[in-house]
């Protein structure tokens, strides 16, 4: 470089800054030096404890004294807003070369006022980079300071944190914490100095050591529980986490100690989540035969574990009408065919009276296995639960997708739930269609076994309603066929 020549040609100056983050002093000295026309390669900038460069070795007081005094009529020094904004941040960077760089650019700005807009200029880029990493460091401080509560002698709580910043940001960021925790007493200790707020005034203190800060806080246990629970093991993305929360910060974050075990356990946890719940049934069969085979093997709900066999629906492909009952009963389970027991016979009766041809319809159940309890030698029918119906809906929907009926008739609340996914009141929905998600009409009526349980007038009344519902369905079918 040419620095050595300049020493012989002209004076060289060393500026000693009182603190590594003292932008105001740098600005004042830089202004004077520019006004005295001192080129950048004849100034070195020295921060406390720093060696600056070769020339700083001459000793602080001597070189500082020699700083030239600008003439009274020296033209003002100019810098763009953008420069000032970036320089304020860049000056806090720990790079010892930062003040020299800032001075060089300030110098160049006097000749080229638009310099800061030339983003492709390497020195401009460098200042931007410095400012950016300082802002990032400040942001990480806002994020990763973790206070621990200690009790002062007078019983008031005092919140103390230990933080290790990369740059000289502590004083500059004090205001952020003051605005946020204005009514708390707190201290932030760092190897670059500490700050203390007592609710009214801010005090600065010397650099601290980690052991000066408290070692724990009972609330950290709760915080760790939260951290471990809010994380979704099905979405492990360690790289994304590391880029935002690099490992160098981990040692001061109480929750970070959990990370290795959370990651290690994630796959197992996801597997458990899937196994305990979302049943992986693979592809849904696309033929009725396929569904028939699959339901025999199905153990997706506890009913499948009982001593029974699955009962498949019956009827032609493309049947305009699909009739859905609740579940197979004792006789259906023995014969393997839907609606052959007492309720089935009653249904046949009503269908033929209403003029509906059962053999042209597809008849099936919401639940494919017979749910029962043993009573002596008899198997006693038990209604399926909402969850069992929802589970079995998988198969019912498969049948509906394959058969593609124009109209579905649900017999009873369980059947309605199997199609709608929610429980509806039969009195409220009967008599008019409800649209299924693909627009198919769903008609809901009572289950014939309900009629079997009634007597006298009540039975007559229900029988009339049932017949009326079937008549309406027949009419609607005729219209649809229309």
């Amino acid at each position, binding site marked *: 470089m040419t620095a050595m020549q300049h020493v012989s040609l002209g004076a060289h100056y060393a500026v000693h800054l009182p603190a590594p983050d003292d932008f105001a002093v740098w600005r004042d000295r830089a202004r004077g030096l520019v006004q005295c026309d001192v080129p950048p390669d004849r100034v070195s900038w020295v921060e406390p404890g720093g060696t600056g460069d070769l020339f700083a070795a001459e000793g602080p007081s001597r070189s500082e004294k020699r700083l030239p005094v600008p003439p009274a009529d020296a033209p003002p020094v100019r810098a763009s807003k953008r420069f000032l904004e970036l320089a304020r941040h860049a000056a806090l960077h720990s790079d010892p070369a930062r003040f020299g760089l800032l001075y060089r650019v300030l110098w160049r700005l006097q000749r080229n006022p638009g310099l800061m807009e030339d983003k*492709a200029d390497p020195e401009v880029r460098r200042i931007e980079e410095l400012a950016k990493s300082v802002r990032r460091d400040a*942001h990480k401080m806002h994020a990763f300071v973790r206070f621990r509560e200690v009790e002062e002698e007078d019983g008031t709580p005092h919140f103390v944190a230990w933080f290790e910043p990369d740059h000289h940001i502590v004083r500059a960021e004090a205001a952020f914490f003051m605005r*946020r925790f204005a009514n708390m007493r707190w201290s932030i200790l760092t190897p670059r100095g500490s700050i203390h707020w007592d609710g009214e005034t801010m005090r600065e203190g010397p650099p601290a050591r980690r052991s000066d800060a408290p070692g724990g806080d009972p609330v950290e246990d709760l915080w760790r529980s939260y951290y471990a629970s809010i994380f979704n093991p099905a979405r492990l993305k360690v790289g994304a986490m590391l880029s935002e929360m690099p490992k160098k910060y981990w040692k001061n974050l109480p929750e970070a100690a959990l990370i290795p075990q959370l990651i290690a356990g994630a796959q197992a946890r996801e597997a458990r989540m899937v196994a305990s719940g979302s049943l992986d*049934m693979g592809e*849904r069969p696309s033929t009725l035969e396929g569904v028939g085979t699959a339901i025999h093997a199905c153990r997706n709900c506890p009913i499948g574990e009982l001593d029974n066999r699955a009962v498949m629906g019956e009827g032609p492909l493309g049947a305009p009408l699909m009739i859905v009952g609740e579940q197979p009963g004792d006789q259906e389970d023995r014969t393997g065919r839907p609606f052959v027991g007492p309720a089935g016979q009653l249904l046949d009766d009503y269908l033929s009276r209403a003029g509906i041809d059962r053999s042209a319809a597809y008849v099936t159940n919401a639940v494919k296995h017979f749910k029962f309890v043993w009573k002596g030698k008899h198997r006693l029918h038990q209604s399926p639960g909402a969850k069992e119906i929802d589970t079995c809906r998988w198969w019912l929907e498969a049948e509906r997708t394959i058969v593609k009926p124009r109209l579905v008739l649900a017999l009873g609340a369980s059947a309605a739930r199997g199609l709608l*996914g929610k429980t509806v009141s039969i009195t409220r929905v009967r008599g008019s269609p409800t649209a299924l998600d693909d627009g198919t009409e769903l008609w809901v009526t009572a289950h014939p076994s309900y009629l079997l349980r009634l007597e006298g007038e009540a039975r007559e009344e229900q029988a009339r309603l049932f017949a009326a519902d079937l008549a309406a369905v027949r009419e609607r079918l005729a219209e649809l066929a229309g």
Partner: protein
Amino acid sequence: MPQQTLRQKLEILADAAKYDASCASSGTAKKNSLGGKGVGSTEGMGICHAYAPDGRCISLLKILLTNHCIFDCHYCINRKSSNVARARFTPQEVVDLTLSFYRRNYIEGLFLSSGIVKSANHTMEQLVEVARILREEHDFRGYIHLKTIPEADAEIIHEAGLYADRVSINVELPTDTGLTRLAPDKNARQIEGAMGRTKERILTAKDERKRFRHAPRFAPAGQSTQMIVGADDANDAAIIGKASRLYDNFGLRRVYYSAFSPIPDASAVLPLKRPPLLREHRLYQSDWLMRFYGFAPQEVADAAGADGNLPLDIDPKLAWALKFRESFPVDVNRAPRELLLRVPGLGTKAVARILASRRHRRLRLDDVARLTASLAKVRPFICTVDWRPTFLTDRADLRGLLTPKSEQLELF
């Protein structure tokens, strides 16, 4: 049932909240605790205080008030017919947790949502009560996001917006048929009605603030929503269309996409394996294209394949560029901002830098390299003083050249 400890409740109710994608705590009115009695500040930018191993930011205490629910939505782990462990916080417990986490600088505030207990109104009142205690009794000035329940009375939802920085109403599923099928207790009209009312109130409050300095603020960080992706068969084009209609009609701040995730005790109506997480990422990218890059929804949809889904191996902007090669190369020394924004690999910042720099010099490839993150990605689509792609955009294998090599395993 034995009494649950606070910690057990926290575990259950945070676990139940982990499927919600939204987390942001930004964009609200600035406030701080100077001159007050409590703690808290918001300065425009939200702060992520931690990151979970799933890569997501933790900026708020995100919990449910309770995971008991009278509804039975099939994609939801809290639905009535699910067998999960249940718990319930009192409003005071949530307040205490929020404050003790906040005072230790773990969080920016609270994101509270809830299963529906007793009735929508009752639940909404409890949510509002938490916010009221925080704001009025503790003078809490941090961020509050309340999930509102569209089935609740408009008046209670209104009150929520007076305490909260942000309110959100989930649309849940991209299509109405998906909603009817998977969330039979919910109603699309009702959801959109509530969104529309919230929008009106946000606008009215803004207007009043202009006239009267002390007019109450109403959800200054606006409203957002979440859509579950992959639980029904809606494709990306349909999802993008839905999102853009929501932005237009309801002035939403954000639409969040949450890849349907395998949940314990799922309903069998959800046959699907989990959709690739990458799909969610591509949807966010397409969202950015619309919000910051001037793409029309239809243009983003054009980037999708024949099945209406965005490619997973490349980002949607590159997919668009490869499909509309005739728009390239773009001359970085002359092209207007809108065209520069279309160049794959040029972000809004890089474009701003290019526009500023070219007033001072005619850009060469070297200069562009300094202004962008990855020259390799940009090069085939631009020309500079010293560079013009030699029909590279015509090469049939361009996609192969630009497709990132298969992803590295995330070692730890």
